[in-house]
């Protein structure tokens, strides 16, 4: 529902980067979307396409990278992907494990033609 607003923020980041590179042309922007970010990747992709269509920024692709929720066990330092909302460490069964990724909503990279 708020994906168009997020798409706008991504385009603003591209515009800011483009202003710093007057001789370059940004053709792709890579964004990491965490499982816990509360963002629908399809809606974000669609919103971004609509936003860029028929503007000077076209062609500009958005590449989304899904980041799963990873947990770390404090006892055995094992990192594992959390599935079915089960936070228990698969090695030792510890219940209280720490979330170490999955909240991302980050611009990772941009591709520039110079």
């Amino acid at each position, binding site marked *: *529902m*708020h994906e168009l607003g997020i798409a706008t923020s991504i385009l603003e980041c591209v515009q800011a980067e483009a202003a710093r590179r007057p001789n370059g042309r940004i053709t792709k922007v890579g964004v990491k979307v965490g499982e*816990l*970010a*509360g963002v629908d990747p399809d809606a974000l992709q669609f919103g971004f396409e609509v936003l860029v269509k028929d503007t000077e920024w076209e062609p500009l692709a958005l590449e989304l990278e899904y980041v799963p929720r990873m947990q770390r066990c404090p006892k055995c330092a094992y990192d594992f992907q959390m599935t079915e909302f089960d936070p228990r460490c698969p090695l030792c069964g510890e219940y209280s494990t720490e*979330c170490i990724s999955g909240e991302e*909503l980050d611009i990772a*990279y*941009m591709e*520039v033609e110079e």
Partner: protein
Amino acid sequence: MNRIAVEKKVLNENQILAEQLRERYRQHGVLCINLISAPGSGKTALLERTLERMDKSARVAVLTGDLQTENDATRLAKFGFPVKQITTGGTCHLDARMIERHLEGWKLEDLDLLIVENVGNLVCPSSYDLGEDAKIVLLSTTEGEDKPLKYPSIFFKSELMLLTKVDLLPYVPFKAELARENARRVHPDMEIIDVSSTTGEGLDRWMGWLKARQVKAKAKLQVAST
């Protein structure tokens, strides 16, 4: 073609503003809470009961967000504390800029507690940091017990879950224990308080939670000033 690493938050502008607000709250020892739930879970009713129980001299203010109407601000203004409505037009969440704009005219040094009632929505508000000390999510007994699993982001990010309308438990098929279990699967150490704004059940515990957090916000202020 050249690939450049950026590593920047998409909502960087909102994040910068939110951090500025957080710093302003910290400097003045203000506790800011952000109440989030689906529409109709009882945020405004809970706030009515909360303000009613506050001491008349309490230094509390409320920002309440909706797409349209001043109805909530009118309901909450009856208790004599400063209240401002934020009408977003069509936007489904509050962002840090809206908060900053609506704080104009209020002096943070005159406040101990700032309550933000977000737009009724379990999805979008979870993405926008408002500079609050704590997000609080409400789940009512007239919803599904699996809401925490369907909308994990907001349950993960909230420090406290208020299970509202518990007076209705004898009349609805809602299984409270299953709802708590689902919430704890998403967020194992989240605090949960059962409340009813109709009967007053659990409100003492809720007021106690608020008080304890206010003491903590003041303690941070003293640490900073010594």
